């Protein structure tokens, strides 16, 4: 579904990603783990056409999308729910969801909206409310809902658990597993290592713009090095 090879990018000539290789298969959840500043969000944004790559290749669903414009990548079905949600605060929940299908799946907007509010009944209650007035958890639901409106073929979630209470985090991971179980491939970018590994099939650990560890999630969970660096064990 997604193949990233030798990807290098950064800001203003400064390298952040120093050659990333990564694959995501159909129907997989792949976790991308790493500390703050490792380059996870830069990786997402380079894949999605928001940050320009210096070098390397990105292939999605069989075609080369390296350096393509963000809106073309959305049109191809690669959808990112970004860190910090990036919802439209001045617009209602409904309008936010409608814009989710601005580039893709517009003819099925109504049906998809029903599907999204079935997943997130809370959003239905807040339909006419300005998105900026929602709670953190609701904003995250809206961001994911907006992403689903585009009928993604691959969904990248950048730190969906950030800023949520432990109880909500629990629910968020259960939800991600459920969406994946319906057949959607997911890249889950997280700092929440153990919870991510518990729902992911495979994972990559990124440090300083490089993949330092990768493999099956079940195996990584037993990895001594990972435990030491992330759990202080």
């Amino acid at each position: 579904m997604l193949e990233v090879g030798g990807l290098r990018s950064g800001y203003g000539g400064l390298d952040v990603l120093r050659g990333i290789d990564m694959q995501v298969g159909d129907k997989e959840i792949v976790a991308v783990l790493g500390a703050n500043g490792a380059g996870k969000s830069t990786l997402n944004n380079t894949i999605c056409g928001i940050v320009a790559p210096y070098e390397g290749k990105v292939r999605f669903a069989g075609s080369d999308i390296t350096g393509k414009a963000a809106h073309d990548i959305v049109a191809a079905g690669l959808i990112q729910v970004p860190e910090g949600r990036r919802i439209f605060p001045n617009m209602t929940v409904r309008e936010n969801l409608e814009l989710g299908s601005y580039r893709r799946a517009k003819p099925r907007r109504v049906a998809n909206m029903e599907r999204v509010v079935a997943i997130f009944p809370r959003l239905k209650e807040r339909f006419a409310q300005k998105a900026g007035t929602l709670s953190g958890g609701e904003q995250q639901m809206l961001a994911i809902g907006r992403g689903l409106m585009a009928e993604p073929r691959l969904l990248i979630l950048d730190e969906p658990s950030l800023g949520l209470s432990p109880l909500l985090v629990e629910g968020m991971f259960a939800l991600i597993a459920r969406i994946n179980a319906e057949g959607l491939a997911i890249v889950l970018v997280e700092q929440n290592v153990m919870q991510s590994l518990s729902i992911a099939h495979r994972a990559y650990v990124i440090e300083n713009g490089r993949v330092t560890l990768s493999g099956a999630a079940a195996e990584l969970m037993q990895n001594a090095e990972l435990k030491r660096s992330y759990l202080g064990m």
Partner: protein
Amino acid sequence: MLEFSILLPALLNGLTIGAVYALVALGLTLIYGVLHIINFAHGSMLMLALYGVFFLHALFGIDPYVSLLIVPPALFVLGYALQRGVIGRASHGKDENILLVTLGLAIVMDNLALYFWKADTRTIDTPYGFDTVDLGIATIAVPKAVAFVAALLICCALWLLMARTDLCKAIRALAKERQGAQLVGINVPHLFAMSFGIGAACVGAAACLLLPSFYVAPDVGQVFVLIAFTVVVLGGMGSFAGALIGGMIIGVTESIGGLFLGESLGQLGIFVIFIAVLLFRPTGLLGHRA
């Protein structure tokens, strides 16, 4: 004591010119709403549009109202191309650069006009230029009545167009959250250029409605850009309805001011309002709080 019979025509006159101001200001406020910049080239685009209407009439005998089918689309193309080809490229995404680029464009356009068409003030003659309609309570010049009705219709049509398509939503989304907009697949450079193009088309329409009762000269844009800016500030930066109401208020203020203070001092009231708004309601009548 001034009589009602003098005040009423002045009021009507103010409303008619106000509708045209609103149209010009609508373009300015649309561009501001999306790009967060004041387009200093707005007046110069109006000047070019007025020359366009003038020459279409002088060379080909095309009536200014028929030019409504030609000049606004031409201005749309000009605005789109300017934003996509010049302003966007030259500013490298920095707002303060965009401001300077539009200012530079204004200076270039004004001086090119001066070079090619000289400083002469030009007007056109139309068969209906001096006709009036009797409204019962007052009479009003036909070109002004047409301008009023047409400007309002165009404002409504534009509003409908934006509300019925995703365009309005996309513009509002982009204004507040650029990365979010990119991630739902909004083509940012295209939408910027569309806003600029539509803003320019508003100016093109205003030119067609103005010329039968107005003039054109290379510096005519300066008059309007200042008034349009006042309208936008008064109505609330980026507010559609605000531009409409603001335009009417400024038009009436100018007209009534002219009645009391004389033609040359009529605009004084506009700037009194401008300063009062900045002092007491900086977000404008319908503006959102920052």
